[in-house]
């Protein structure tokens, strides 16, 4: 298996070639005939949106230089391959934090933009793309565009959440958020039913910057959706905090575990234990930020626990007013299938819109789970879940998908027609070929509005307010 896989190890992919991009100013060779290109950094997307089977992957993991950091305003600029972990190491001691972060700090900035990532603060802060001030986009023609809300706005909105299909992001500039220190005040509350989650979430979202819930997706009908509700707030000026953070120990899964390890019985047992071992009442704590935001990062290569067949992640969002009924139906299907997950997460998204044309988060309730790959059984279950999501006018997250149909994709992302003309003609991905079914008819695309900025791209340097 080559190293250029996705995090779920499904589907397996064999790129035709790998082309490293070492320096942002160097020309990139796009001359191969009949070849498609796709940027790739650390392969943290779960499915096939970061794969380009039989095509060329542009490895941007060497673009990891930080370019500017204004410690007074919190404006940060870096190359696209810089990870959130690298950035946190620099900014947290200076009193700044990422405006939005997903559940791992090992994502690249380019990937965070291309997937318009969200986190536990979506109900207040929205997506990462909302904090992007500007980036430079390299197209296969060799042209370079500085993109922002006001410059090349078409490319800007298409690239945020654009799955790497609009070109290579070389660097990006974004706004950080101020903090008093590295600690998070947390609270964990056990709840016994899905309806209780919605009540807790409505209250907690008012007073907490970060909210999320773990749920037991094996629990029976009477306790459907039981789980643990987790809230967090950055420490305040006067919060009493420990004098130092103990170094975190990380462990690594050294090889693929046997596939039988995670079966329905072991997963059910883990879920039951996790629920019952948590405290009956609310527990409050002060935790270092990385323990709160990135618990899975302590176990390096945790994806290997799913064995060589890998796993499929499923994340959907159900908008109002169908949230509670829709999530209940999804959980019911999952429980009856006997295919469950230990990592099942529930969260309420807020209503702040992202600038990204293909951005996934939208107002509603999001459910994320992962399933060991059991072939057709798993794919059939996820197809049934897709139908429920579709009926509820929801959407499934492309960054975590490896098998949604073209029909479902078009239903979830009606903006795909506006997005398509902005794709770089030499860029593609395994995901994109699958969901467009290679048959983007001229008739369908002819109805798509062409953005004005495409017709007159602006090349001038952008004044972002930082000294050059």
């Amino acid at each position, binding site marked *: 298996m080559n190293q250029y896989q996705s995090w779920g190890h499904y589907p397996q992919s064999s790129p035709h070639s790998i082309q490293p991009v070492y320096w942002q100013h160097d020309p990139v060779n796009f001359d191969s005939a009949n070849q498609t290109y796709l940027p790739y950094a650390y392969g943290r997307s779960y499915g096939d949106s970061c794969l380009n089977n039989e095509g060329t992957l542009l490895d941007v993991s060497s673009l990891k230089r930080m*370019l500017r950091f204004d410690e007074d305003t919190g404006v940060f600029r870096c190359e696209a391959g810089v990870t959130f972990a690298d950035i946190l190491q*620099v900014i947290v001691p200076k009193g700044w934090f990422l405006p939005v972060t997903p559940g791992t700090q090992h994502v690249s900035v380019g990937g965070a933009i291309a997937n318009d990532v969200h986190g536990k603060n979506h109900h207040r802060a929205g997506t990462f793309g909302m904090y992007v001030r500007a980036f430079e986009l390299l197209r296969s023609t060799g042209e370079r565009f500085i993109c922002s809300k006001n410059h090349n706005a078409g490319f800007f909105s298409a690239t945020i959440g654009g799955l790497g299909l609009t070109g290579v992001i070389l660097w990006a500039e974004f706004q950080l958020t101020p903090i008093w220190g590295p600690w998070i005040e947390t609270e964990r509350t056990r709840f016994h039913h899905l309806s209780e989650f919605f009540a807790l979430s409505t209250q907690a979202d008012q007073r907490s910057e970060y909210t999320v819930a773990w749920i037991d997706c094996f629990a029976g009908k009477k306790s459907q959706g039981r789980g643990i509700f987790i809230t967090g707030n950055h420490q305040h000026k006067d919060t009493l905090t420990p004098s130092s953070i103990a170094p975190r120990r990380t462990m690594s899964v050294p090889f693929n575990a046997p596939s039988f390890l995670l079966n329905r019985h072991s997963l059910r047992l883990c879920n039951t234990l996790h629920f019952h071992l948590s405290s009956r009442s609310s527990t409050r704590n002060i935790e270092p930020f990385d323990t709160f935001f990135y618990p899975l990062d302590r176990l390096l290569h945790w994806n290997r626990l799913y064995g060589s067949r890998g796993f499929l992640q499923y994340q959907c969002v159900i908008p109002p007013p169908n949230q509670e009924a829709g999530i209940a139906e999804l959980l019911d299907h999952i429980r009856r299938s006997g295919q469950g997950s230990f990592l099942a997460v529930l969260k309420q998204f807020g209503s702040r819109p992202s600038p990204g044309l293909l951005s996934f988060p939208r107002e509603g309730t999001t459910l994320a789970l992962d399933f060991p790959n059991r072939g057709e059984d798993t794919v059939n279950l996820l197809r049934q879940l897709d139908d429920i999501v579709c009926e509820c006018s929801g959407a499934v997250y492309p960054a975590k998908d490896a098998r949604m149909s073209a029909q479902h994709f078009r239903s979830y992302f009606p903006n795909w027609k506006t997005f398509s003309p902005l794709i770089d003609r030499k860029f593609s991905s395994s995901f994109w070929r699958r969901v467009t079914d290679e048959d983007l008819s001229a008739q369908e695309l002819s109805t798509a509005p062409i953005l004005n900025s495409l017709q007159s791209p602006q090349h001038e340097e952008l004044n972002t307010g930082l000294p050059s």
Partner: protein
Amino acid sequence: MNILILGATSAIAQETAKFWAQEGANFFLVARDKEKLSAVASDLQVRGASQIVEYPLDLAHIEVHQQLIQAAIHNLGHLMSHLWPMEP
């Protein structure tokens, strides 16, 4: 800490310099390509370097070596010597 790096845009030089940058080192960086040198200098600055001098130069030009050393000493005051073990 004052550090002169010849070939500052090589991968190993960049990664090593990051550690010194976190400790607030002063750098005198030498490499051929001005744009790449500037990118490396920016990175070290953000990571905590105190002072950085960029000195674009092709070290194949032996006649300017003396001038280079003088410029480094002039900017940094004195230099620390750090030699990696060489192959025999």
